[in-house]
């Protein structure tokens, strides 16, 4: 065994590099093709736009990465995002709460939702897919209940500035995304908790037998995922200056797509935060590029879906190692 590993480690062939960075290659190819065919693509204003547009899904995907590496899934993130936006706007507008307090309470409630999902999943052994699906519907219903279906408007300027301002020409959203990815990366790769996440996803039973509290790890993952979803939801509400009960419908699929395209396996045990970033950028770049090329929205969907499949096929080559 050891002799074989040493040999493998010694070989840095083109194909092994490609296997490791598969999706990155595809991403770069797509960017190059877009730079050639769409004149406005490389303009700084446009590139900043792309980062802005992927930031919300990217932040959600950061949390989702933890969950998926541990072989779970969280379908509730879209609804939680909407709830966080609605709560923050509602606290500020209807209850006169100071903005900071409104945000903290909204985040806390969202983390609570994540914790309850984690508890149900670990204690009742019901699959995460089903539990988070149910929670998705419940939370969406709560959004409508709280708002009667109407958006909550009249939010303060400070609220709008959170998601809308910029620092030295770089949009705030980009900083939030960078912060999420960097913190997520550090936790995932440099902390014992991060190692446990991989272990739980790789082999649940063995990890439990090794003395790690796997339930705690999984519950924490869901709390992280809900926190990220809430953060994205508050930023979105800021971007559209209103709490929208219908916001982020389908966002969970975008977040999952970003994570999976980035190379994280749905079976758990493998994946990376940087991969998620590339996955999110990949999706954003395609959409932006197709918009610039003025491709009809119907073709866009076909194109995006095809590219996703191609990207995952390419990435699956490395699994054969």
């Amino acid at each position, binding site marked *: 065994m050891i002799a074989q590993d040493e040999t493998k480690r010694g070989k840095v*062939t083109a*194909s092994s590099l*490609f*296997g490791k960075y598969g999706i990155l*290659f*595809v991403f770069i*190819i*797509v960017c190059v*093709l877009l730079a050639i*065919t769409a004149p*406005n693509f490389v*303009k700084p*204003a*446009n590139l*900043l*736009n792309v980062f*802005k*547009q992927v930031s*919300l899904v990217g932040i959600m995907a950061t949390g989702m990465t933890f969950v998926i590496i541990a072989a779970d899934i969280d379908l509730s993130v879209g609804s939680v995002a909407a709830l966080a936006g609605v709560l923050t706007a509602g606290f500020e507008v209807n209850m006169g709460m100071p903005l900071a307090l409104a945000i903290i309470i909204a985040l806390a409630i969202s983390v609570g939702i994540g914790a309850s999902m984690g508890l149900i999943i670990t204690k009742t052994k019901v699959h995460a897919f089903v539990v988070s699906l149910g929670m998705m519907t419940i939370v969406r219903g709560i959004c409508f209940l709280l708002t*009667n*279906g*109407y*958006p909550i*408007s*009249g939010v303060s300027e400070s609220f*709008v500035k959170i*998601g*809308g301002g910029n620092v030295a020409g770089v949009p705030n959203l980009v900083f939030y995304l960078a912060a999420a990815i960097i913190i997520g990366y550090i936790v995932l790769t440099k902390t014992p908790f991060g190692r446990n996440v991989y272990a739980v996803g790789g082999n649940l039973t063995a990890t439990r037998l090794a003395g790690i509290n796997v339930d705690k790890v999984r519950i924490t993952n869901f709390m992280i995922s809900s926190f990220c979803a809430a953060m994205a939801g508050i930023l*979105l509400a*800021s*971007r*559209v*200056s*209103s709490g*929208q009960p*219908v*916001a*982020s*419908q389908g966002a969970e699929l975008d977040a999952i797509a970003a994570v999976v395209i980035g190379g994280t396996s749905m079976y758990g045990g493998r994946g990376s935060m940087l991969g998620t970033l590339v996955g999110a950028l990949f999706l954003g770049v395609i959409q*932006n590029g*197709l*918009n*610039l*090329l*003025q*491709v*009809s*929205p*119907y*073709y866009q969907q076909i*194109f995006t879906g*095809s*590219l996703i499949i*191609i990207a995952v*096929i*390419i990435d699956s*080559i490395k699994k*054969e190692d």
Partner: protein
Amino acid sequence: MKNLKKIVVMVLAVAMIAALFAGCTAAPQESAPAEQPAEAASSEAAAPEGETYTIGFVVMNTTMTWMQYAIAGAQKAAEDAGVEFKLYDSENDVAKQTANIEDAIAAGVDGIVTNPLNVDSLTPALIAAADAGIPVVTFDRRADGGKTIAHIGSDDVATGRLAAEYIAEKLGGKGTVIELVGQTGASPTIDRGNGFHSVLEEKYPDIKVVYSQTGDFMREKGMSVMEDAITTIGEFDAVFAHNDDMMMGALQAMDEAGYDQDKIVTMSIDGIPDALRSLQAGKLDATAQFPVALGKVGVETLIEYLKTGAVANNAVVIDSWLITKDNVDTGDFYPELSK
């Protein structure tokens, strides 16, 4: 062998991607789904300094019937004026609409025409457009925040009042009404509802709205809301839908439940071809024409601003009018029916 297979797959994948790109960029600018591909009219530009204007047309969706006709009219207006037309579909999502406006700004359009999904959702995006020096015209739906140079609308409050008066007259001042509400938070929904209810409250206290739910302006949802209303209420005298698409779904629901359409007064708004056909067939009682010209006038107003630096009228109101079986040939879409 394994390495060779990997390389082959990679080459194939890259080839597929390149082919997709080639295919997509070769497809000419297919903007409005119902129309022929828009000709690149920029070569015959009518713009004075030899420069072509580009307009970003950011619509809330391309799936609503009314919207499709408005887009077609707007596109034609742009073509006729030799102005380039870029269509952005927001797929009924407020975040997407904000992103579309930002994309239009980054693409360097000279002006934007849009119908905001709801009155507040575009405020930050409109402020960004103003900061970038890009004039914005809203049509169909207004934006309460941000700066726009003009709004082209129809007096939705008056249309709501029109609907209430019609139903009251048909019911003889007494009866029960089911209301199918439009997308919540959208200005047509708010205004039509207000107009409708205010007339009932002021003049016809014996007419009661017994069921009021949103069908989001969509046909399928209108149908399921109507089915639920039928289950809950059972007997009613009239149905008022904020738009024709929802009413078409509702009529089907009533048909399937075995209701006698002659006994129920039905009224909706928009005047799309399906509604006009329904009028002719005697199923729908009345609709109010919501002029698709709003899109066209929106584009024309923006072009006027781009060429002259000012608009003659920054609050254009195109009235809607009542269409019944008797005057169905005055509908915007009547020519469509005779095809």
